[in-house]
């Protein structure tokens, strides 16, 4: 589009998207920003919704539960992402090196299932599998003589449960990302690598690992964002409990907003979370979309 002449037909094609995105995407964020500076208790609207300056933000900074929920989210990250990367890379190497082409193809197709399956339903099935009395997990453990674990009834086992479910759901994603990295290695590079480096660890470290690096970076950033977003699976599986032991940050903000009904404080928390999300997105864009930054 030249500077002097506006290409109206093109404007007409893109305008609906811009208008809708402003209306349903940007406007609510500005609205949240506004509410975050107001007193806004849904159950006490008779108090009015006046501006209270930074009071909500001060409340958030002094709110131990908020920082704990962020800390718990970080803990959840440490429990899940390293395991997903290790298993994901191992599975990717295995599938990439498979001799049986048809089976390798089948694996790649079926690995999509955990990723796509409704997280709410994953939470329900988690309730079933991790049930203390008749769950399949405790049955497996009983076979090796472990007494029944109350997975969802106690803080640490509950955290381990949501972590295991997350590892189950997202390891295939990491594996598929890594497979696409490995598939970029040409046969010649691989063959000459085998001659130079031998097989096994050396081949992996000197030939294959460099191809996994971009995927690894993407996985780290996306998993961080997804864990900050994580709500449905945890909400159904533990409701953040027992107590607040599995209350990750999105689950906590949802509780403040929709079970305590303090919209002002919840909005302030959401704005802080938004800033965190934007920082992550910036980093991701820097790394993967050079053309956009230019």
């Amino acid at each position, binding site marked *: *589009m030249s500077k002097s002449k506006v290409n109206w037909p093109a404007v*007409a094609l893109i305008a*609906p998207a811009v208008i809708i995105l402003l209306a349903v*995407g940007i406007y609510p964020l500005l609205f949240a920003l506004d509410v975050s500076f107001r007193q806004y208790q849904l159950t006490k609207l008779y108090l009015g919704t006046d501006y209270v300056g930074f009071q909500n933000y001060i409340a958030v900074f002094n709110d131990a539960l908020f920082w704990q929920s962020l800390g718990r989210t970080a803990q959840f990250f440490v429990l899940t992402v390293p395991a997903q990367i290790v298993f994901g890379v191992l599975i990717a190497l295995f599938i990439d090196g498979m001799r049986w082409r048809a089976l390798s193809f089948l694996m790649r197709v079926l690995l999509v299932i955990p990723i796509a399956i*409704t997280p*709410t339903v994953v939470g329900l099935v988690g309730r079933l599998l991790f049930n203390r009395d*008749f769950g399949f997990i405790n049955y497996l453990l009983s076979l090796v003589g472990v007494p029944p674990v109350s997975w969802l009834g106690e803080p640490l086992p509950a955290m381990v449960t949501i972590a295991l479910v997350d590892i189950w759901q997202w390891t295939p*994603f990491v594996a598929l990302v890594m497979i696409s990295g490995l598939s970029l290695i040409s046969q010649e590079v691989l063959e000459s690598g085998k001659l130079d480096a031998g097989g096994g660890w050396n081949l992996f470290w000197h030939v294959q690992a460099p191809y996994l690096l971009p995927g690894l970076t993407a996985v780290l950033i996306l998993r961080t964002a997804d864990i900050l977003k994580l*709500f449905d699976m945890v909400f159904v599986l533990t409701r953040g409990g027992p107590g607040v032991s599995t209350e990750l940050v999105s689950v906590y903000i949802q509780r403040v*907003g929709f079970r305590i009904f303090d919209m002002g404080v919840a909005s302030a928390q959401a704005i802080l979370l938004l800033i965190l999300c934007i920082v992550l997105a910036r980093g991701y864009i820097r790394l993967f979309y050079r053309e956009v930054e230019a």
Partner: protein
Amino acid sequence: MSVAPQARSVRSARSKRHLFTHLWQGAVALLLLVAFLLPVYWMVTTALKTTADTFAVPPVLIFQPTFEHFRVVYEEGSVAKSLVNSLIVATSATLLSVLIGAPAAYVLARFQFRGKADLWFWIITNRFISPIVVALPFFLIARDLRILDKHIALILVYLTFGIPLVVWLCVDQFRAVPREVDEAATVDGANLWQVFFRINLPLAMPGIVVSAILAFIASWNELMFALVLTRAEARTAPVEAANFMTGFGIRWGPMMATGTLIVLPVLIFALLVSRNLVRGLTMGAVK
């Protein structure tokens, strides 16, 4: 004379090694498939088991299947209604996302203009924003507009991820259509809209279908917005399913039957677009 048998034995040793490789790789593959598909299998079989079989320890692996739970779920009506709601909301959100997103993607693929980088940034950033950030203000706005518990509220909010997804995947698709095609059509007297609708849209259709399927899966699976923006009338299937966890005495059979009904369309769609799922989830950073 002595060479031939030797060669044969080398060959048979190699084929034995191949067989061995096949065997252990097949075994590991089977183990992986069991690990990743077992929860789905468990859900479907629990939906088909009698309640007594569900509570059996050790678990019963061979059982007489019953459709009792599906019948109960159907007759109670609220699950069926929520599935219809989900279908209405997800289909509408998907169609709107494609209708609005595909033309925008075409313009982004073909033209340079001011604000383009910002638009890009917003589209990609959306992949990172936690839904709670949008859910809080959207709830208050929907309350003011009196569209709480109506389909339209969910459809609108689902556009916040539907449009970016469609735009992202379709830009790639439109870029793959050679510019010369556009130029030739313009020389023949076609205007931009004709070039887009008559030529580019049909050529980009495979990519558009993939993006529509991914947008549908994301809308169908969504819980947070649906939980916050609906009550009884517009309640979608994930909210209905989550509600099984409240109240006394969990009804495992109907719950798993509901889960099965929710997951079925997602699985079919996901298998159809399996090669594109990772591309969609990483916004194209990983092809």
